[in-house]
């Protein structure tokens, strides 16, 4: 086991994953699957941000869909009502959620545990109600329609393969940023906060500052996903940004594993797979409906918390490592002794 002073991002892993994303659409041809894979990319962006918040800063958010909605509505309102270029409104879709997160963070910094969970829940509901009721801007429950497509050098990203690549390009950027964050000074500070907030603040870590930064980053990621979602669909309505979606994002992170960036990615993929599975089975078996999907999500949440509290991905990794470990056992033992020897000297 080679110990490094600073842990580095595993670029090979990123590269392998990027290749996987590139060839994925060619493994199947139906546009239904490509749409689902595009959604997996959107969900990945939100889930990675939520994973940073939950797994590294140790903060729960039951209202993440609100930031997703704020991002989507920011761009939809600007580009449809005011005709502003989507690339310009991208900035707004990132900044408005960040600002909202900053204000909410000031409030929530004083809350812990169940009180924090309640506050995020309340926040998510307030935003959802505002999306429905602020009719002069959001057009109420029926939502906004006619959201323009994103264009670059005259090329419009319509639904399908081109949008799939656009979404996943952003998703990969988000993954790389997140990997960099957790392998940096901030990441180490966050992990220490996650283990013990009191101990790390005693060591001089400004816990409040780091928690706030991660909260803002996760809100910006959700805003980015909202921006992509708004320009993918022709119309948006408040139903896509309610409590159900917040819980869906939570499910992804818990399922995949909150303590790893790849865990969140894995979770987003698994949920999309389950969605496809239920959809395909549903067309053959009348018993399997969209209600059944919810039963399944509930069951998954419970089973994962009970049997795989760290999530599927970290458990898989440690399982693979333990196989590897058997072969290298002797070598490592020798190393441990060498270290001990050094210590004596």
């Amino acid at each position, binding site marked *: 086991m080679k110990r490094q002073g600073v842990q580095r991002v595993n670029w090979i892993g990123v590269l392998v994953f990027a290749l996987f994303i590139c060839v994925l659409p060619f493994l199947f041809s139906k546009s239904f699957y490509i749409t689902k894979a595009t959604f997996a990319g959107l969900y990945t962006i939100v889930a990675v941000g939520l994973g940073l918040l939950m797994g590294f800063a140790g903060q729960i958010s039951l209202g993440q869909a609100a930031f997703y909605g704020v991002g989507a509505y920011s761009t939809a309102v600007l580009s449809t009502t005011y005709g502003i270029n989507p690339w310009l409104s991208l900035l707004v879709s990132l900044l408005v959620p960040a600002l909202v997160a900053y204000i909410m963070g000031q*409030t929530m910094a004083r809350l812990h545990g169940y009180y924090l969970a309640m506050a995020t829940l309340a926040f998510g509901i*307030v935003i959802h109600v505002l999306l429905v009721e602020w009719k002069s801007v959001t057009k109420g429950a029926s939502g906004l329609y006619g959201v323009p497509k994103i264009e670059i050098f005259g090329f419009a990203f319509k639904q399908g393969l081109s949008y799939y690549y656009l979404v996943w390009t952003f998703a990969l950027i988000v993954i790389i940023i997140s990997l960099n964050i957790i392998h940096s000074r901030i990441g180490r500070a966050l992990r220490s906060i996650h283990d013990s907030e009191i101990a790390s603040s005693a060591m001089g870590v400004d816990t409040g500052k780091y928690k706030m930064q991660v909260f803002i980053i996760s809100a910006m990621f959700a805003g980015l996903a909202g921006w992509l979602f708004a320009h993918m669909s022709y119309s948006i309505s408040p139903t896509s940004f309610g409590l159900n979606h917040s819980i869906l994002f939570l499910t992804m992170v818990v399922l995949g594993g909150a303590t790893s960036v790849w865990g969140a990615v894995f979770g987003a993929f698994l949920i999309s797979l389950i969605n496809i599975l239920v959809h395909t089975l549903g067309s053959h078996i009348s018993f399997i409906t969209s209600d059944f999907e919810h039963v399944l999500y509930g*069951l998954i949440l419970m089973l994962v918390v009970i049997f795989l509290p760290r999530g599927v991905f970290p458990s898989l990794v440690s399982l693979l490592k333990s196989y590897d470990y058997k072969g290298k056992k002797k070598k490592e033992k020798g190393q441990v002794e060498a270290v001990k020897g050094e210590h004596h000297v």
Partner: protein
Amino acid sequence: MGELMQYLITGLTIGSMYAIVALGFVTIYSVTKVINLAQGEFVMLGGMIMFSFTKAGVPYIFSFFLTILTVIIIGFLIEATIIRKAKNADPLSLIILTIGAAIFIRGIASMFWGKDPVKIAPFLANNEPISIFGASITPQSIWVMVFMLAIVAILYILMEKTMIGKAFRACSANPLAARLMAISPKKMSAFSFAFSAGLGAIAGLVIAPILFPAYDMGIMLGIKGFSASILGGLGSAPGAVIGGILLGLIESFGAGYISSGMKDAIAFGAVLLLLLIRPFGILGEKNVGKGGL
């Protein structure tokens, strides 16, 4: 004057509902330190099972008690199968666990009862509104308040005057010491779940004639009950009642004077504001160390 009175009565009625749900949260929390976000589903089950029993031709009063019994068994089963397995998990995982349980129950309910709301007869055949100071109130609304007061009284007697209440408080204060005194925290945990499932069922039963229960009624009621217990200060029964009534009043006056569509936003906005001023709720957690309730 009539308008104000009407909002006050409506606020007290829904506030009492939230208070009953919040008392369920507090009962479990003060014994096990678990917040059971499936509490709202117990309320929903109360209404829906009552509907099934009365539809099957079981007399009203028997359906009432059979429903409570059924939901108590469900609560007991949830504790025995899910919560006990994950007892040592951190609060974050426990929240997620009970959210999972809530989604699961809700999904099953929508497959079993369908998505349409059901209708249940009020307690008294004559549910004509009574006029008080220019405002009207239905007998069923009075029943909700009566049940809330009765539950508070029963909870108080149970917790303060009986051995079981002492055992509850002992487990809450120090599970290890409680075990040394031959009290089983496991049994108490199961009992608290069964008990609060029963409370949820009662809440569901008394409000069913007003609210027309549907498979998804538990979400909002659960969240409102949770915020009422947080507002009052987790682990405090008087706090839960105050929190519930306060939330009901804010909601009712918000809906009346500002906008009915905004009532949830106003209620939760107020919760956020109050948490900003008092991060540990109105009555704080000062009772928890002494055994809650």
